[in-house]
């Protein structure tokens, strides 16, 4: 049996150790916010937190996260930080087709909790693993910048 926590809830499964965390989240737990864009760790649409660390769930076999604390977009949706990001992405026009956005929001949250006041370059580096084809990134960078300002004090190193 493989045991870990998912969005604060304990999970226990006898699924094989090689099952991708992405598929476990989507097919077993029926959480759809974590998306598959490439299956190879190149696009970031499947981003989750593993023990507070931003990672691509398509590359994680569940056997290796025994005992870990996994958080998906559903796990941060109720937080103050998410509300700021939600507002900022809307105000800055950072959302078009939306497919990259849950992953982008996870990357934004990860960036801001490491670096509450990032420079433009640091923002671009922070989301460099999240591909977007619609926006050309600039309005997403604006959104994160806005969230950093608006959320001053909310972001802190975990």
């Amino acid at each position: 049996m493989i045991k870990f926590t998912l969005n604060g809830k304990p999970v226990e499964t006898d699924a094989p150790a090689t099952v991708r965390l992405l598929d476990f989240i989507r097919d077993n737990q029926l959480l759809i916010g974590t998306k598959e864009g490439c299956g190879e760790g190149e696009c970031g649409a499947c981003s989750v937190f593993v023990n507070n660390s931003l990672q691509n769930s398509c590359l994680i076999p569940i056997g290796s996260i025994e005992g870990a604390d996994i958080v998906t977009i559903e796990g941060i949706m109720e937080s103050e930080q998410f509300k700021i990001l939600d507002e900022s992405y809307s105000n800055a026009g950072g959302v078009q087709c939306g497919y990259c956005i849950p992953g982008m929001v996870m990357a934004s949250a990860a960036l801001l909790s490491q670096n509450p006041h990032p420079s433009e370059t640091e923002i671009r580096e922070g989301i460099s693993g999240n591909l977007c084809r619609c926006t050309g990134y600039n309005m997403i960078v604006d959104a994160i910048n806005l969230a950093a300002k608006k959320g001053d004090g909310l972001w802190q190193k975990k």
Partner: protein
Amino acid sequence: MNLKNISTSVPRKDHKGKVSGQLAYISDVKVENMVYGVLYRSPIAYGKIISIHLPNLPEGYEAVGAEHIPGPNYVKIIKEDQPIFANEWVNYIGEPILMLVGEDLDILYRLLDEVKIELEEHQAIYTLEEAIKQRSAPGVNMASYEFGESLDTITSIELKAHQIIEEEYDTGYQEHVYLEPQGMLAIYKEDEIVVQGSMQCLYYIKNALVNALACGEDDVRVVQSPTGGGFGGKEEFPSMMACHVAVAAKAVKKSVMLVFDRSEDMVVTTKRHPAKLKYRTAIDKEGNILSMCVEIFLDGGANVGLSSVVLQRALLNSAGVYKIPHFHAKGYVLKTNTVPNGAFRGFGAPQSFAGIESHIGHISKLANIDPLEYKRKYLVKQGDPTITKGNFRDPILMEEMIEDLLNTSHYKKKKREFQQLNQQNQRYKKGIGTSLFLHGCGFTGSGERDHIKAKVKLVKSKDDQVSLKISNSDMGQGILTTLCKIVAKELDLPLENVLYPYPDTKEVPDSGPTVASRTTMIVGKLLERAAKKLKTQWQTGVEQEVVENYVHREMIPWDEKTFMGDAYPAYSWGVNIVEVEVDTLTGNIKLEKVYANYEVGKVIDERVMKGQIDGGLAQGLAYGYLEKMTSKEGKIQQKSITDYGPPTSLDVVSIQSKVFDNPYADGPYGAKGAGELTLIGGAPAVQAAIEDALQTPFQQIPITPEVIVESLYVREGEDG
């Protein structure tokens, strides 16, 4: 909605679901009694299927092929040359031959590996070059057009000319890389098949299904799912997938889900047509243009799809924004045994503009005039004829936009500075380049009048909520919000009271496909009229319905046979200026500054428009130097996003843009099309900047580091 100005931005209506990830795209959907489908694809580029050996299929697993198609075995688009499942012949690597369906993907993949197909391989045409050599052979020429000045006149002009410039220019593939891979689901019901999925064109799919299933209009229903990006890649391609899942659903009496892997999507879906453009221009002693002949070859891939229309647009844009004396053009779509090519934002225009801007830029060098100054001499003016004897009847703000951008970018000063800098710096060279471009809004020619005949409906409920009943897809470009804005403003309603449910053929009339930068201008205008009508008839608390039909404003009628008349009702315009730094050691390009001015009539939402500018221009620039896709013996070589190389957040820079107001009478609030315009100027501007930096001409895009290094190396070799 009491927005004083329609352009003022509002929050997007679908924001919540997208930012939380809870909006369900097709691969997020599970229905009961559902099985997955996986496609067996041809491993060879051209040949005959001799036999098919299926492995023993366990209970619940079945094979679906051409024999299960109730109707004729082709995907209904323009010509009947695209099989749903390959019949006897296969024409490209990746062509679907059969589908296996079943509950467990693991088992399906294993069964797929065990399928054995015996094929008799025949000599294929792999490249555009080969196809050009064989273009008189039967079946190779899939479409062609010719128009313009008589060749006799041109010959006589050339005889007296000071010099004839001949150039050959190549453009490469471009792959959409929408973040959401293609996906389609057919839901099986006794009395109807419901197909839903990622798509741009609801009724293209419906029509293809009615044809393939040989059924009545009411037996099949199509519903658009939230669509994670399209860019033209989900214009015609999804019709084939819809046929696959619908045929399978009917055959196995279960719901069938077909979702592509990214690597599958990279290799088998439609791409931007690679092109070869040949120019032959006569100039006088001062470098003035006396005549020009353009010949365009498009690599259509293995079936024609929409390529004839792509060729039309490429030809219609072959003179760029210029009034060129004695202009002649002809073009061909040629068949190769490679993945069929199709729609991609710009639809033939990006290839033409890259070509003509390159050519004119090179001629300006011969004339010893700054490229931008040279281009301005030939800029069309209001009232000028188009190259098909139509007319540029609306005001053109290009001169104003150019002047403005010259000031904003300090173009002249930068040009001088860079020339000095480059003399001192060995490794890094800087350059600045410009592009001038336009985009014809709406369907080419008489398409709106003769084929689409768009119809929109507004439905008001008892509690005074108004729903838009149209067949157009929001794929990220924001029409879910902007079209509602138009209706809300006309009816003076709060935006929340205007609804735009995902299009469903059971519910909506055919307002046309979501393509050709037509949605805001054509469908938006119809909605504006419908809303005005509803306003005059408004009865509170009563269910009401209003319908509006497309009315064609006849200008100079378009004749496809002679290629003459007004090809488009309106044009949007743009100017780009780009600064680059070239690392001569590695050939890598760094974008330094990007400036863009556009005129699209009226902006329906500033933020939405900025999103189209940032996103479209990022794609256009990357088309010029960053994204490269190649085919070797019929096989696409780049199977992963990384190998193909679309830009990351570290590969783009902030774009300084401005949009000019120039309301167009037949657009809603004066709006014209904007979706494709913003991509078109990118590649030619970046090419011009690279040429300025290196003081060397290029004859192709993408101008990758490989192209740059090989040019510097070859040049050095020749000098040394």
